[in-house]
């Protein structure tokens, strides 16, 4: 391996900025801000956003340098887009920082968000199993702590424990799968693994390794049947943490998953677009996608808690995203990236609305949203944009994301194989999904407010985050080429 430290340093500049930013936030808080409680939140938030902005700028400026440090990292168009995407989503989520009454240690919270974001950007660039695992774990450990950060509510601790137990199990699966892959190919490098696997038959050992990896990523993506943690975590976690888990974590996870499956294990895909189906990871991913679509959409119908509803909607979207993963090998990652990024924007926005509402009163049940249009037209308008985008209504970005993914999946082989039928199933279920999304909007836009409901004052950072997300959803929805043209 030729040790190109300058190249490595250059490629890791965004991560360096994020880590330095996190340390700076902590240090500044310890030395100066903790003695000035009035400004403590603002300082932490400002420093955190500054670090994210610098990291985002560096990520965009790095350019496509290809393989770095002997193939440990890969900086291509997808890496750059994903890094900028996760940093943007993390910035938007950070703007939803809970008020001082519910968050006594803002600096630690911000620092953890920055560490998690470091994990996401590393996931975007990882091209070697060890880096993949380290990046995933860095992000996950930060998220576990963030989930349990709200010490005023027991649900938060419960959610953190569940998330941690499930996540720890998934990490074990991932590591076991990776060790089997290493044993089969003698390498941790994705390129070498691919060339080695191309020479092998689909051995039972390889199948076990694939199964382990799929279980782990099914957990990360909250896909059925590995979704059980999602409703509890979405319900219990502080809003920024839930937003981060649902958006940036998903985007980064899907990108690293796609990288691992297609360039790394592409020879073991099996067939999925045509019958008869042959075994490989493709049919398994298709099964997971179909199960997630069904379970997510049907499960969401029964929810009366907004956050749990968003969790089931996330499971349904995970199914559609996995369809995008299946199509990514032949037709490119553009539809998948577009879908994941715009889904993240809409979810961050939806959690943002809930976060603002939580500061003023209960915001758990659907009926807690009643009369939002009276209490805050801004929140109600933004929520309409986010929810309609999740439902896939044009001209919002959620529509084109679905459209592009379904078109790509159908292009694989028309209706001559399971993939095409899965796309049709997803289209049919989108009509079911509209029902529960409209239930949210019915409360927010149609129902009358409760008698004691006061107007909601939206804090400035949250208002900016909501408006930016909504504007991005409209702009990207009308001009999808802004993203599709990147690849």
């Amino acid at each position: 391996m030729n040790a190109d430290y300058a190249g490595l340093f250059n490629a890791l500049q965004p991560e360096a900025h994020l880590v330095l930013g996190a340390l700076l936030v902590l240090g500044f808080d310890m030395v100066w801000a903790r003695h000035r409680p009035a400004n403590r939140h603002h300082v932490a938030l400002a420093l955190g956003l500054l670090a994210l902005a610098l990291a985002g700028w560096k990520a965009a400026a790095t350019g496509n340098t290809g393989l770095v440090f002997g193939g440990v990292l890969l900086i291509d168009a997808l890496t750059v887009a994903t890094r900028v995407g996760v940093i943007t989503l993390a910035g938007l989520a950070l703007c939803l920082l809970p008020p001082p009454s519910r968050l006594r240690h803002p600096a630690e919270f911000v620092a953890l968000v920055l560490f998690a974001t470091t994990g996401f950007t590393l996931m975007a660039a990882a091209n070697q199993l060890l880096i993949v695992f380290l990046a995933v774990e860095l992000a996950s450990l930060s998220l576990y702590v963030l989930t349990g950060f709200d010490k005023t509510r027991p649900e938060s601790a419960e959610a953190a424990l569940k998330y941690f137990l499930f996540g720890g199990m998934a990490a074990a699966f991932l590591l076991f799968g990776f060790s089997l892959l290493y044993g089969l190919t003698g390498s941790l490098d994705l390129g070498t693994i691919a060339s080695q696997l191309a020479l092998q038959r689909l051995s039972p050992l390889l199948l076990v390794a694939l199964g382990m990896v799929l279980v782990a990523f099914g957990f990360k993506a909250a896909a059925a049947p590995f979704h059980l943690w999602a409703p509890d975590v979405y319900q219990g976690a502080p809003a920024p943490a839930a937003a981060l888990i649902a958006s940036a974590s998903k985007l980064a996870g899907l990108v690293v998953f796609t990288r691992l499956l297609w360039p790394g294990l592409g020879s073991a895909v099996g067939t999925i677009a045509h019958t008869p189906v042959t075994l490989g990871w493709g049919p398994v991913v298709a099964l997971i996608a179909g199960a997630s679509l069904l379970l997510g959409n049907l499960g969401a119908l029964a929810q009366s808690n907004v956050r749990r509803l968003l969790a089931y909607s996330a499971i349904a979207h995970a199914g559609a995203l996995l369809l995008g993963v299946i199509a990514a090998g032949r037709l490119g990652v553009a539809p998948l990236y577009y879908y994941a990024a715009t889904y993240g924007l809409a979810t961050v926005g939806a959690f943002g609305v809930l976060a603002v509402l939580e500061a003023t009163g209960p915001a758990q049940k659907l009926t807690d949203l009643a009369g939002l249009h009276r209490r805050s037209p801004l929140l109600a308008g933004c929520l309409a944009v986010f929810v309609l985008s999740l439902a896939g209504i044009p001209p919002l970005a959620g529509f084109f994301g679905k459209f592009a993914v379904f078109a790509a999946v159908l292009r694989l082989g028309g209706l001559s194989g399971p993939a095409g039928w899965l796309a049709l199933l997803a289209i049919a279920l989108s009509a079911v999904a509209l029902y529960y999304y409209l239930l949210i909007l019915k409360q927010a836009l149609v129902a009358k407010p409760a008698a004691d409901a006061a107007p909601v004052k939206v804090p400035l950072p949250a208002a900016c985050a909501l408006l930016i997300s909504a504007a991005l959803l409209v702009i990207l929805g009308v001009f999808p080429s802004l993203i599709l043209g990147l690849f």
Partner: protein
Amino acid sequence: MNALPCTIYVAFTGAFLALVAGARSAQAARVIALLTALTIWGLTLYAASGFVPAAGLQDLVNVPWIPELGIRYHLAADGISLTLLVLTGLAATAGVLFSWNIEERVGEFFALYLALIGGVCGFFLSADAFALFVFYEIAIVPKYFLIAKWGSTNREYGAMKLVLYSFAGSALVLAGVLWAYVAAGGQGFGLAQLADAAAHFTRPQQLGMFALVFTGFAVLAGMFPFHTWAPTGHVAAPTAASMLLAGVVMKLGAYGCLRVAMPLFPVGFAYFQPVIAWLAIAGILYAGFVALVQEDFKFVIGYSSVSHMGFVLLGLAAANATAVSGAVLQMFSHGVIAGLLFAVVGRMVYDRTHTRRLADLRAMPLHRLMPFAAVVFVLAGLASMGLPGFSGFPAELTILIGTWQTKPLWALAAAGGVLVAAAFTLRAIQVAFFGRTGPDLCPAMPHPLPPITWPEKAGALLLLGATIYLGLSPDTLLDWIRPALQSPLFQAILTGGAS
């Protein structure tokens, strides 16, 4: 013609302005909405004045939109789309006039209303299946909020049912269009482009795609047995929304069948033609008989819409130049007449008497309390029955003549529907307006009714004028429609018949 795309932009701009202005002054929002609707109508009439009928679509805008998927922002129009755009402008203007009395969240009401109009205009102008689909869905969502917020009887149920039916229909269309796009090699979504490619599809593909796309659009057109959303939705909706829903939005479905499903998949159409015709006839008769026994005045009109839309579908299924031009004429005619009927029932009668039960209305001497409403309803009823001198007559007659040329049995069966229509319309007129001849005051209605306002009179006269003008001179529209049917795309599906 080049003014037509402006209707879309004007509608959305007006929606935004109405939303902003409505936060401060309700009257400002009303005026903005009226001006916007008038501008849209004016633009369509201006385009019509310079319109030279020709075979095929005349390009208006054609620029790349999403080159990665071969999607273009392609707007084009022919005599058929022009007819429906003029109808949209007319119905939009009348709808604003009939919702002048809305007092609650006026800005939002008109913003949603105008957004719906914008989606409808875009739909009628699209020559690219993707753009068409986008505008179609933009037109669906405002309907939910218009009904759920400003509606009456059972509004949340009616709104949800209507939107889910529409959305399920659009999901079928999406599936069919994507399948066609993929089978065509994924080059693009232009309607002409897809039609060229569809000529090489296998027979099962054509049948499957046609079934998906046609059923999807037919749900919105209220085809039996997928019509049940229409009466409940129309009854629950506020007056202006009922007028637009029955008058214009149901036409989206019929237009989609004619513009997309039939020319793209002629083999599929030929296969399903008898099924469509018999479902259309079933709809005409079934909805007519159901209308005959309704106890709610608005449900009578709701089912009559389904029955009259059956004639449109029958005209399309008969597939000759006469029948199809009659179907387009019927779309216009029914748009005007249904608007008028819903306006009388929902705005003039219900907003004053607060009842729509025919048994209650029978107890009131409405013909003396509201002579204007009674006259308008009688005239509209006559038009709806298809009496000469009103637009319903040339439209349904043309459809029946055309259908006779294809299959006399269909025409005979459908002609029974004309009789049923006369029966339920006369019953509604008789019971609602002339049920009682005693003294003016009755126990059911202790207060004198508020007089009919000027916006209502203006709106009613506008629509009445349109139906009478068209009844006397149907060739105005037929001269636009017939040449459009000469385009090669339509010729592939039209058989025989006088042109």
